[in-house]
């Protein structure tokens, strides 16, 4: 990875927080970050660490306490609105506007007072709508949409703004797994195919680890650790910051207490093996590959799965994990 990427935004010794009655509440200090082109960056950290504040500050919606934020290339006209678009957590679900109207809002930095769209503007809006696959919803009012659809509308609006940088604050909060996956995939594809730099604050650890190009992790000392997702997992940064309770990030599993004190030999392979292991560990058995008094082997016919259980000398058979656990 020696290739030098185009960088859209850098911060130099940035201090972030807010001032309330002359007392300064510092959330981050000494930040030297950069947002490279074509990268999807997930910004993670516990609640209250100041993720939203950092996003707002980078987007120019909140003044930094000190330090410098530079955007490349510098704004020529129209200001920062043509460089950074944002998707925030503000609720907008009661508005009496159509999806099309809201996506069109993305063109505002380029329009005059009477918001007359040129042919080029219309084309950009259409492309944004297509990328997010909102065509069937175009004439729907915002208050008719689900949370996931609303989020898609706001992302389409950000795309219509046609900025090299997109900052999103928890775009997948309150969504179901399918919607979360869809949004993460969409953002990843966008960053790859359009060379946009996309920064999103999120709590979706599993999704972030599997999609992000880079991770920003809020540190202990008001700083931010950056790195590849896998490196941060292996060097224990995640464990340190989140102080996981009963979750082993390196294996991606919830830690189980083998309270039964019984070890079972499990023989098999594939998804069925993994899920059987999961079931046994979940219910308090420990698993071993070596010889044990109890052994379970997976037999996969063309038609169905069977579990053969050998207990001392007895041999039993189960046709589901539920029955397997019963005979154990």
């Amino acid at each position: 990875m020696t290739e030098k990427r185009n960088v859209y935004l850098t911060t130099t010794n940035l201090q972030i927080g807010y001032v309330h009655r002359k007392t300064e509440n510092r959330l981050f200090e000494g930040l030297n970050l950069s947002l490279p082109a074509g990268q999807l960056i997930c910004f993670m950290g516990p609640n209250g660490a100041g993720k939203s504040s950092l996003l707002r500050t980078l987007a120019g919606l909140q003044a930094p306490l000190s330090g410098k934020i530079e955007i490349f290339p510098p704004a020529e006209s129209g200001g920062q609105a043509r460089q950074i678009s944002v998707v925030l957590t503000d609720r907008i679900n009661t508005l009496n506007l159509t999806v099309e109207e809201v996506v069109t809002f993305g063109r505002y930095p380029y329009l005059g007072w009477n918001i007359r769209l040129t042919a080029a503007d219309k084309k950009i809006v259409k492309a944004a709508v297509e990328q997010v696959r909102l065509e069937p919803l175009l004439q729907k009012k915002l208050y008719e949409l689900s949370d996931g659809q609303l989020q898609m509308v706001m992302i389409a609006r950000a795309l219509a703004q046609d900025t090299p940088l997109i900052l999103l604050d928890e775009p997948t909060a309150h969504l179901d797994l399918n919607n979360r996956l869809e949004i993460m995939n969409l953002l990843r594809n966008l960053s790859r195919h359009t060379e946009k730099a996309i920064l999103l604050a999120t709590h979706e650890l599993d999704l972030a680890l599997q999609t992000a190009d880079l991770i920003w992790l809020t540190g202990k000392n008001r700083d931010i650790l950056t790195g590849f997702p896998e490196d941060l997992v292996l060097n224990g940064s995640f464990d340190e910051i989140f102080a996981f309770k009963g979750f082993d990030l390196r294996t991606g599993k919830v830690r189980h207490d083998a309270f039964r004190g019984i070890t079972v030999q499990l023989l098999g392979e594939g998804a069925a093996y993994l899920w059987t292991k999961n079931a046994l560990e979940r219910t308090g058995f420990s698993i071993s590959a070596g010889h044990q008094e109890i052994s379970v082997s997976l037999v996969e016919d063309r038609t169905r799965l069977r579990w053969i259980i050998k207990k001392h000398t007895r041999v039993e058979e189960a046709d589901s994990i539920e029955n397997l656990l019963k005979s154990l």
Partner: protein
Amino acid sequence: MQRKITIRWTLLLLALILLFALNLSLGSVSIPLPEIFKIIFDGKATHSVWTDIVWDFRMTKALTCVLAGAALAAAGLQMQTLFRNALAGPDVLGLSAGASLAVALIFMAPSGSIALFAHPHPLLVSLAASAGCIFVLIIMLWVARKLQDHVSLLIVGLMVGATTASIVSVLQYLSKAEEMRVYILWTFGSLGGLNWNEIRILSIATFIGAGLAFSQIKTLNAWLLGDQYATSLGIKVGKSRVMIILSASILTGAVTAFCGPIAFVGLAVPHLTRLVINTHNHKILIPAVLAGGAALLLFCDIVAQLPGSTYVLPINALTALIGAPVVIWIIVRNKKLRV
């Protein structure tokens, strides 16, 4: 979608023209409608008195209805969007309260043993009302620069209103019955007293105020998403806010100066208009609200003349009578309340 809006626009404009014609045809002297058209378009009439009546009384009054209704409604819409509050109206900035205080001072000051004016000239009343509005406006602009958040601004506006109202109460307590009557008559509002010169001033003010409102279409729309999104879309929030307050103040101030404090039009019209033209898009909504405000005030004025053909009810009583049920209805339908 586009066609539906066009049809509804046509209906709205048709209603406006109809109400205007109806308004012209009503009055204590009965003049047939064809005659009225002849007077307006030919300048000739069967009786020369009719020409004077139509031009100097009915036309001025109908035009005042149009201008005042449009102005108050546009001010109300802007306040509702600015404060994201469905129950905001032009009076939330305390402007009419400021005007009331100034006028109350003129009418009732003699009782405070300050004989300012023996018989206040109507123009003096207008000037005082404008001065009161401008005074409150300056306070509000100063506060708007100090306070970043809209709710605080809304509360300050209401507090300014409450303060001036209580000063007016003190004045009322001290004043003689006759003086109080004059003041109370003013608070009833009047659409009929304007001459052509005053209408000229009112229309200039309405055009400037409406022009400012049109210049803020983009801002008002972006504002619907909240301050943060508006800023991210390149809207200069502070500057726009001053422009919107200025627009609403010019509109409200001019109407209050010439017609007295007309309540509820500014609050109710944006909601009524949205029943016809169902959108929050200000590019459509601002012109619709201007037409809707004009239509509503023409309607109120027609109703005011109906009971007996010689007697005209106070306009403020009627706007409230029509406006208050609307407010109740908005609250009852709360789950569909959208600003």
